[in-house]
């Protein structure tokens, strides 16, 4: 794909001062929680940030590309096992397993995307689901690595041999860094020429093809990038829980990731990130109210789908517009 030189530079939005403030506030949050004796919330927020990485990665293909991927959990679980399997063989070096997780998930995305992207609409939903299920069942059969039950990791990945992330605050900051990096990357890609071609293909595929763009290739690259970030999220998830299991690859997880993206307003990468954090916090709060909190969550999900078509970001925009 050649970039046309005369492509107008994407309109620069206001300098991301707001983003810097949000990241700074999130970075200080653990200190506040510890001071308030509510250190447990650091763990909850870490999980939210990990899912935010996954949701923002999914937003690139789902929101920008219009490709409803119902097998995203496969990238997550591949990333998790890219941490778990080396760990089983006493390789605990984060500088090895994190890139490995991203590469493995990206390769899987390339291979399956090459097939899935030939289909359209609901068939795409179903074929990505099928690939997700294949990974799920393949992992349940790995009896060396725990099979159905998964395996416990007795620690977190290290950095150059140092056990940096034992401390929950340090690990929280790692997750925050990953989420902020993912946000900046997906946002930059979405606003680039490449992102506009992707968006154009969502709105009118035939027209983009007629303009000479290789829609299939653009989508495949976006899918692979999204997969790599999904692998990163999976690697973080394995470290967060210190546990790896095929359950990370269940189709329920794929569904929940879609909920996060749509909850945030599916056209906005920022919304996807906050949708994920909101859902993590919501699950925690609701599960304290009642053991049947999933009923409340389900009611919320149905409500968002029926009423708030553009999610949190849309509600926020309307509120600002008043």
């Amino acid at each position, binding site marked *: 794909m050649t970039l046309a030189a005369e492509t107008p530079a994407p309109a620069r939005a206001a300098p991301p001062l707001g983003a810097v403030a949000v990241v700074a506030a999130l970075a200080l949050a653990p200190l506040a929680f510890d001071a308030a004796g509510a250190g447990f919330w650091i763990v909850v927020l870490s999980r939210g940030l990990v899912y935010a990485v996954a949701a923002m990665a999914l937003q690139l293909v*789902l929101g920008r590309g219009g490709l*409803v991927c*119902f097998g995203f959990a496969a990238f997550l679980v591949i990333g998790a096992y890219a941490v778990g399997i080396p760990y089983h063989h006493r390789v605990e070096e984060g500088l090895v397993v994190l890139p490995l997780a991203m590469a493995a998930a990206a390769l899987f995305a390339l291979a399956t995307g090459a*097939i899935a992207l*030939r*289909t*359209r*609409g*609901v*068939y795409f*939903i*179903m*074929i990505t*689901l*099928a*690939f997700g*299920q*294949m990974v799920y*069942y*393949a992992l*349940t*059969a*790995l*009896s*060396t690595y725990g099979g159905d039950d998964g395996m416990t990791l007795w620690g977190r990945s290290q950095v150059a041999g140092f056990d940096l992330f034992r401390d929950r605050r340090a690990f929280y900051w790692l997750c925050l860094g990953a989420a902020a990096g993912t946000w900046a990357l997906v946002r930059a890609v979405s606003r680039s020429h490449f992102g506009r071609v992707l968006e154009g293909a969502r709105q009118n595929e035939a027209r983009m093809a007629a303009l000479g763009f290789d829609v299939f290739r653009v989508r495949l690259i976006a899918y692979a990038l999204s997969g790599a970030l999904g692998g990163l999220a999976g690697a973080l998830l394995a470290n967060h829980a210190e546990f790896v299991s095929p359950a990370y690859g269940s*189709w329920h997880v794929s*569904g929940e990731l*879609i*909920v996060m993206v*749509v909850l945030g307003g*599916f056209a906005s990468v920022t919304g996807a990130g906050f949708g994920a954090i909101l859902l993590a916090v919501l699950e925690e709060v609701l599960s304290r109210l009642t053991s*049947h*909190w*999933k*009923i409340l*969550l*389900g*009611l*919320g*999900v*149905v409500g*968002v*789908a*029926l009423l708030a*078509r553009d999610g949190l970001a849309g509600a926020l925009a309307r509120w600002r517009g008043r």
Partner: protein
Amino acid sequence: MSATLLAVQALNGLQLGLVLFLIAAGLTLVFGVMDFINLAHGVQYMVGAYLAVVFYGLTAHFGLALLLALVAALVFGLAMEALVYRHLYGRSHLDQVLATFGIILILTEGAKAVFGPAPLSLPRPEALSGAIPLMDGFGYPVWRLVIIGAGLGVAALLYGLVQHTRMGMQVRAGATDAEMIGALGVDIRRLFMGVFGFGAMLAGFAGVMAAPVFAVEPTMGDGLLIMAFVVIVIGGIGSIRGAFLAAVIVGLVDTLGRSFSTDVARMFLAPAAANDVGPAVASMLVYVLMAGVLFWRPQGLFPARAG
């Protein structure tokens, strides 16, 4: 693998296929006619099974419980249509996936709250609880044969309804182009409601029939829902004939794959590895089948939609 074992497993596969067909029939029609992707269809199967357990507890009569459960499943399906699904026709697939995913969360957790997470059971009717002796003192349960018979009966009934009645003609036309038949004066809303209610009742029927064989538990519809989607995608969305053929194929492939894959794997691999690889490959077989069909025939085996 003896001939008897092969025959038993083929019957089991046929039985799974026909249960899948009962679920997939409603799914493919709802999908084909209304372009509505209903993830919550598997929950309808679960609801049918629980309804049967409840009514059996009240009446202590299987036939009566079946009848009441069918009526209740129909009413339940129509109520869900009026409350939620009706507002999602014509919306994006994404909204539909989201809303029906929410319904799954609510109803699955609701069933857990009302009936508890432990599996319940539904006894088979007295007269049909025996077994037919096969070779070497090996019996085949009559009830599984009843499921096969009921599935075939429903398939024939559906074929008659869809091919030879006015409503069936409208359904077929709707699967090809719903907007056009609306323009021709067919009351689409009533047609949609009818199709939806009927599909929900069929899924409920599948739940009642399967309840004596499988455990009745809140998540019983999950696995079958995914399999039913595989069936309708392989068969071609909107096609009853495609759903029937694909359901039988998927049922046989899955069941025979699970029974014989380890033996097959042992021909090529060490026993320990084969014990790992066999079951994994068996669980993946139907998805590989679906990916293959989509690769070579992206519209499925019997596409119903025009264009």
